[in-house]
């Protein structure tokens, strides 16, 4: 088995993001246009029909396939691909775009992630009702399954999750396009109504509508778009077993994150992620998912997340700020868009354009999605040199 690297073969030269939220008055096409045209402008592209060679889109709620994106943007007579991989969809769409450029097939590619869950008439994610045996399945119920075991082994509890929620609520107030702009207290977190123990309302991501986009291009063309391209250092998406039937799962971590980290750190030549990475966007679909990811990504040792949370390592101003824009928790979680929204935030951070939430001197940034039961993890690492 051999695995290569994507390091420094592809650059991100433009990013865009629609307002995230309950966009009652916007169609998916409206959000796609907002995100893509912002990314065009960011890349200095004023003739996208000529400059964009191919499109990779990601969505899990859309029933319309890649046509929804190409029709919204009037990008015809080009290859258009739709990717669907649960919550890893956005990172996977980005990965497919990067692969196509690295393979030399296209010069410049548009990546669009989007979803419109708020047209379904329900609050929160779907309860899966497809099969007999798959019930009951709620995402909170899937991701909560590590709690009893992790709390039992490492002594952590709901108050540790609360600190993550408070942090992400604070960060969301600093991001112009975030959905929720409201600080919460540990007490509010503790008293919120229960969704799936130990997750109360404030442990759960805000499901919203939204779209995000990135323009990527060949390394040697990058500076023809702008002087400060952001380089792809590594990107991967890794599949894992269904943890609900995996006979060796310990319910102390989610296996795909560790595997994906190994692959992407190898690509990016990272051997000390805690020191080498300055800013990270982690998949906080639920607070515990963010907590486990600190450990599974090697930001701290297994079982040590609690003390690192308490000392503020992952807060803005801390040693390794995580979810600087509020994360899924408050920026919002339109499933297919989320991975691309993280690319958007990391690009702003690496260019020094993140305003009040800027991490000073950030050179390497990581974004992480985990989705399914969870059964897939995507990670992208970007750098500014």
């Amino acid at each position, binding site marked *: 088995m051999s695995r290569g690297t994507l390091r420094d073969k592809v650059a991100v030269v433009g990013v865009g993001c629609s307002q995230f939220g309950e966009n009652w008055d916007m169609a998916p096409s409206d959000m796609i246009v907002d995100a893509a045209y912002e990314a065009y402008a960011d890349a200095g592209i004023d003739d996208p029909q000529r400059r964009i060679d191919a499109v990779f889109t990601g969505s899990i709620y859309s029933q319309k396939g890649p046509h929804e994106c190409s029709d919204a943007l009037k990008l015809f007579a080009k290859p258009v691909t739709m990717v669907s991989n649960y919550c890893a969809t956005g990172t996977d769409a980005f990965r497919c775009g990067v692969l196509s450029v690295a393979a030399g097939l296209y010069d410049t590619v548009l990546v669009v992630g989007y979803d419109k869950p708020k047209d379904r008439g329900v609050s929160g994610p779907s309860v899966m009702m497809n099969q007999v045996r798959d019930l009951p399945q709620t995402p909170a119920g899937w991701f909560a399954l590590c709690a009893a075991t992790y709390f039992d082994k490492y002594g952590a509890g709901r108050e540790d999750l609360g600190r993550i929620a408070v942090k992400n609520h604070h960060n969301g107030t600093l991001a112009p396009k975030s959905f929720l702009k409201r600080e919460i207290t540990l007490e509010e977190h*503790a008293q919120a109504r229960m969704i799936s123990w130990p997750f109360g309302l404030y442990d759960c991501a805000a499901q919203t509508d939204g779209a995000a986009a990135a323009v990527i291009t060949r390394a040697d063309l990058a500076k023809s778009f702008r002087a400060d391209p952001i380089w792809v250092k590594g990107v991967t998406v890794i599949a894992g077993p269904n943890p609900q039937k995996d006979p060796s799962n310990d319910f102390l971590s989610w296996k795909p994150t560790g595997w994906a980290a190994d692959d992407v750190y190898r690509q990016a030549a990272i051997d000390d992620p805690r020191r080498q990475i300055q800013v990270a966007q982690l998949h906080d679909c639920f607070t515990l998912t963010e907590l486990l990811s600190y450990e599974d990504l090697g930001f701290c040792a297994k079982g040590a997340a609690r003390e690192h949370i308490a000392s503020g390592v992952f807060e803005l101003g801390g040693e390794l700020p995580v979810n600087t824009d509020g994360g899924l928790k408050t920026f919002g979680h339109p499933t297919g868009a989320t991975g691309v929204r993280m690319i958007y935030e990391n690009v702003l951070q690496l260019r020094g354009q993140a305003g009040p939430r800027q991490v000073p001197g950030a050179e390497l940034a990581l974004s992480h999605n985990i989705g399914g039961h969870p059964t897939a993890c995507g990670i992208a690492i970007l750098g500014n040199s």
Partner: protein
Amino acid sequence: MAGIVSYGAYVPPTRLGFGVMSGRPAKPGEEGPERAVAWADEDAITMAVAAGANALRGFDRAGVDALLFASTSHPFREKQSAALIAKALDLRRDVATADVAGSLRAGTGALRAAFDAVAAGSARRVLVIASDQRPAAPGSALERAFGDGAVAFLVGNDDPIAVFEAAHAVADEIVDVWRGEGDRFVHTWEDRFVVQEGYAPVLAEAVKGLLGKLGEGAGELARACLYAPDERSLAGVAKACGLRREQLQDALFGRLGNTGCAFAPLLLAAALESARPGERLLVAAYGDGAEALALRTTAQLEKLEPRRGVSWHLARRRPVRSYDRFLRARNLDAREYEPARDQGLSATIHFRERDEDVSFVGQRCRSCGGLQFPNQRVCERCFAKDDFAPERLSDKTGSVVTYTFDFFFPTPDPPTIVTITEIDGARVHLQLVDARPEDVKLGMPVEFSFRRIHEVGGRPNYYWKARPYDPEGFAAHDPEGFAAHDPEGFAGATHGSGR
């Protein structure tokens, strides 16, 4: 001689107190009159599976040649319940199955047919199950009178614990209790008419006819297990038949309730729990006539391992705290919209997965010996392909690997306790029932119960759930601990804080 080889019962632990039905809140530890209620995920079929599994404990399931299922409350108008029950019990594929329906005499009728089949040599062993969850209008007298439950008998001619001696039946046309096409609830004519012209004279006619065939008086009977609409009517029939009070099997009014076609057979199971060898037992049911059967217990009765019978189940109670909860569990509460019925649960997926979903059969890898569920082509552990032997999980026990309490999943009774349960190395995602969240512990032992999982597609869909396993065995009674269980008494928002 044909007779009963084994038996088992099932009574749902959920109990609705008459006081709660009248709007009074339940008080902890209070024990007034009550009835057993099948909860939201139970019905005549799931109760039948539980009773059948209890009757088959210690017996070879492959030896069952036929299954007769009696009920007046089959969940499907057209679709055989017995075939579904046979699949859930993992009986042989060539088992003969039939539903007996439409009459409160369906239970005794099925039992008699089983004795006849064994006596005629057309089957060696027949499993007979009677199960009822009869619908009654909210607030009606019938709602208070009814109870839900099931009973199963394994009938055969090898080592019976009670041999079948004789039967006597009376057919009698009368409109007294009925449920017509499209009717939601059971109807009854004025109760004085029902008892004076129907129940009392007709049941007595059947009992006296049977005693005449036996050539003996009522005084020779050890126990009479008689269907009755109420205590007073029962006393009247006993007197007319010359039965003394101590000969009557306790009809469990105020504890179990009128379990329809399972009523008299359930009393027979209760009688078998306390009978001694050589005693004559009589069981008689009423409904558009009456039917009485006589059996005599044998020395084998004392060799049968303890059963999960009537007393085992009656000792395990979970009071329902409010009448509203009961109405919700029965789909009798007012709602703006009916639940969605068009989410398209695929009948072909159900067909492909019936070994797993209905029989709860997993697969053991012939290469590495590991057990996995559901069925897959490639082994989770050693990656061997297509080299598995089927293995039934439903009668194993397991342990809880991890859990959560899901308040988001739609149910009349949140939260839903969700577990990953390990069964002999296989990991299975299962709901946990018959427990409160605070009872759930990592590593706790569980057994498995066939339940309704949802009604997507507008039909009941069934799957297995975990329930706490009582390692004390079948005869153990833990009324203190179990009576404290309460399907509603959970303050979820505070649970687990400080862990």
